[in-house]
Every structure is written in C-alpha cells, then in structure tokens.
C-alpha cells in the first residue's frame, strides 16, 4: 500500500469523557489514501515544547463517503495532549498508512470477536465495518475501567452486537473482558484484540486455550514508523521484527509471549 506524508485539516474535534478526543481530519488535497483496518498513522505534533518525534495513532475509521480520517486519542502525555488541543481548521502532517492490519477470515460463516480496552478499541471500529461490509458476523467485547472510558459505543453498534465489561461495574458486566459470560455462551472462530498488554495477554491465553485464531495489535515505542530504524522490535519466532512494518497486528502464534 503506497505511503504518503499528507497535510490534513482538523474538521472536527470532539472531547469524549475528559481524557479522550475524536479527531476527524480531511486531507488538504481531498484524497484519502487507501487504508486497512489495524494500520496506523504517524502524526506530527505541533504546539508541544517537549515532544520531538511524531506520535503513532491507529486508524480509528476511514470514512470514504466524507473523505475523513478518524483518530481516537487518549491524553497520555504532552504529545497526545497537544493533539487533543488541536483547533478545528488547524493543519497537521500525517504519514500514512503504516504497517499491516488485521486479516479477515477466509470463511464467511466464521463469527469474529473484536475485543479491546480503553483507547485500544480504536482500530476495532474500522475492522468491524470492514468485516460487516464483507458479510461477516461481528461481535464486539469492549472493556474499560468505568463507563466513562467506553468510547464510541453508538458507532460500534452499527457493525455488530456490543458486549461490555467495566472494572467498577458501572456498565455491562463487572470485571475484565476475559470474564464476560458471552465467551462461555458463544463460539468465536477468530478474535482480534487491541488494548493494554496485560489484557491482550489474557485474551491471547484464552484464545490459545480454546484454540481460537487470534490477532493482537502491539504498541511498541516507535521512532520512524517505517521499518527503517529498528527501534520498535518485538521478539518473535522469526527473530526481532519491526512492529511498525511487520505489525502492529500479529497473530499470537508468532509472538513469544509466555501465556
């Protein structure tokens, strides 16, 4: 997939809860590049004195009808804070699309579970839409600390059934995603997962135990995002691989996770 370094203009910046923002950006040249669910972009950060490098952010959604790229950003530090503070009309340079995304199952009868936590849900929205467009049966299992950390629920519901866990029980079942009752009630033939590492490991463990094909999306620290600097490597069965190029999505079979 051809990569671009493109200027985007902020069309919309919606604060979700207090620590998240949904940015909708339009390419200045009007041409939204082709992208895969699970790929990410590298965003130039203006306006933060302490931020030097770009910041990697997942493609939350590519809206080809309106020509908009959606990014879901959590305030994790100075760089993401500056992103969240961007004003409508500001222009920002974005390198995209980067890495390899999720793979769709070959058999349409398979039912797919997309599960994630916190801001990790970001790439699942676009993957859900991709799967639904291809007539897969999609379910989402979204976890969060609390109700206010559950983002874009209405969007997710457009593409599949949504199950929820919260750690404080403020919405859905109380606990972690791996404790949700739907996992006992239904059979999924594929899981795609994105979120904090402990959560991904728990999901991977569940998938492995139940022999379910499972992909996870890693968030190793990155510099170039292009596979050039070898900073973001993950130790895999094929050696040190660049998460930004061979990933960020990996089948758990390739990882050396102790699960």
């Amino acid at each position: 997939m051809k990569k671009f370094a493109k200027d985007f203009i902020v069309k919309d910046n919606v604060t979700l809860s207090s620590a998240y923002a949904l940015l909708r950006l339009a390419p200045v040249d009007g041409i939204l590049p082709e992208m895969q669910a699970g790929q990410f972009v590298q965003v130039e950060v203006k306006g933060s004195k302490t931020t030097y490098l770009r910041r990697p952010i997942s493609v939350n959604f590519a809206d080809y009808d309106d020509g908009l790229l959606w990014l879901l950003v959590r305030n994790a530090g100075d760089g993401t804070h500056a992103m969240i503070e961007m004003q409508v009309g500001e222009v920002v340079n974005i390198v995209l699309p980067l890495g390899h995304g999720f793979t769709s199952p070959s058999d349409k009868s398979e039912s797919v579970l997309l599960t994630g936590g916190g801001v990790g849900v970001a790439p699942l929205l676009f993957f859900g839409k991709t799967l639904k467009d291809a007539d897969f049966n999609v379910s989402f299992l979204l976890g969060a600390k609390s109700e206010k950390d559950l983002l874009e629920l209405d969007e997710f519901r457009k593409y599949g059934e949504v199950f929820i866990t919260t750690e404080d029980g403020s919405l859905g079942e109380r606990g972690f995603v791996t404790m949700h009752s739907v996992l006992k009630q239904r059979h999924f033939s594929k899981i795609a997962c994105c979120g904090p590492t402990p959560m991904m490991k728990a999901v991977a463990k569940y998938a492995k135990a139940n022999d379910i094909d499972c992909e996870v999306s890693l968030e190793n620290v990155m510099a170039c995002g292009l596979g050039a600097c070898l900073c973001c490597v993950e130790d895999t069965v094929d050696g040190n691989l660049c998460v930004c190029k061979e990933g960020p999505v990996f089948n758990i079979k390739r990882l050396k996770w102790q699960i």
Partner: protein
Amino acid sequence: MADLRVNIGALKLKNPVMTASGTFGYGEEFADLVNLDRLGGILVKGTTLNAREGNPYPRMVETPSGMLNAVGLQNHGVDYFISEIYPRIKDIDTNIIVNVSGASPDDYAEVCRRLLPLEHIPAVEINISCPNVKQGGMAFGVTCEGAASVVKAVRKVYDKTMIVKLSPNVTDIAAIARAAEDEGADAVSLTNTFLGMAINTETRRPYLSTITGGLSGACIRPIAVRMVWQVANAVKIPVIGLGGIMNGRDAVEFLLAGATAVQVGTANFIDPSVTEKIIDYIDDYLNRHNLNSVADIVGGML
C-alpha cells in the same frame, strides 16, 4: 540553479545531502516518500560480518529535542546484504554507501573485502563509534591507536573511498581524525551518537534494555558543529558533518563550519522528505547569497 556537486575523495555527489546510517534503512523504506534519486548519497544500515539480532526491546526513548537508541547493529550480515538487499537497491541513482562495523580490525577488513566487487557500492563508511555494542564499535573510536588499527586493516584490502565515522565521546576528536587520515582514510564523518541514558522515574528502571544508548537529534547539534569545525581545521581530507540536522539552515551551518557534505539522521523520522527540502534550501541559499556553488560556503564561516 547553483552547482550543488561536491567530491569526497574519488566519490562524486550530485549534492552534499546524504542520509545517515541506521536512520534510513536501505532507502527502500522511504521510497514512497522521497525521490531517492535526488539524494547525494544513502548510508545504509550498519553491516557486520555475521548476522546480529541486536539488543532486546526497548531500544529507544525520546529526550528533549532528541532521542536515545540502543538498536545494537541488528542486521543480516554482509553476505545477506550482497545477495538479497543489494540487488533490490543497486539501481537507485545515488551513491549507496555501506556502513561497516566489526569486533576486530580483521572483521572490518573482511566485510569491506566482500563489498569491494559490488559495482554500485562506491564507498564504505567505517563505523568505529557505535556506542550500542560491547565489542567493536566505540572501543576503536575513542583512542588514536584503536582508530588507526581499523583504518589500516581496511585500507589494505579496500581501494575505493573509505569514510571513517568518528565517535564524539572523546576528549580530542581532532587527534582521532588525524590518526584516521594518517592511515589513509579518504574522509571522516562525524558525529555518531553521544552516549547517554534516561531513567523512568516511576518504574525506577532505565528506559533502554541496555541502560545506556546513543543520543541523536537536534539536541546534539551545537556539539557536533563544534567538532566538525575542530576536525576540519585539523585534517586535509574532506569532512562529512552530521548530528542534529533538522532543516536546510542546519545543513548550511555544518557546511560553513567546514563540512564538504552532510548526513541527515533522526530528522527523517520527523519529516520523511526532509532531505529533499534541504537540497532545495541549499540551492536557494546559494542563489540568495549570490554564490555559484556549494564549494563557496564549505568552511566559509567568517
């Protein structure tokens, strides 16, 4: 349109702007984003005799106006380079220069010997300054004897252009540059990264798996410019300047300090097409100052 051509020994560059080793992969990774044919040269990833897995993750952390890395020369070894990578990149219309590392002078020499027959590799850059590997690398770069031993061994077997990349982690970089010159280096490039470290105060652990790593980026530029100026005043061979070049102005600063050409490293991560912008800037700078060629500003500080 000013004359941007410069020479590094027998090596002819269409302009003085190259990419720094380890920051630009093999060029391919940037092919969608930069017109590679416009570059003065591409310094490919550090290459060793045998394949190396590099250091464990985490390998990088951002610092004020810079970053620390601890990649540790991950590469597939020189033979893999020759058989797999070289064929893919050899037709890029620029100087493809291989950055070479080793654990002993013989190691360096052997890698260079194998690279010698490659028609489209007109030069090597001998890295005696990598702070991220225990053996080889920086140990050779911090003494005159160490530097001399590597240069001597390579010079015996390699008769194309040899650039020696110097370590900044020394008291007297000009002395090391002279040692390399005396043993027949065709040019020196400086600087490599500065040995640094950073600690995550919440976990109390170092950010890098190797504790220390190499500092690069804009933060090091004032020190790198000073070193280029000192070395350019101490040797007769051409100096290639690098360290924190973020834009055209910075590149001109290195040329004025005495560099004949420059390399751009970390800036590629922030703006992947920065090298093309730097080439355009230098052209424009020369025109604005009514100068005909890059040679007119090399060492041109008043």
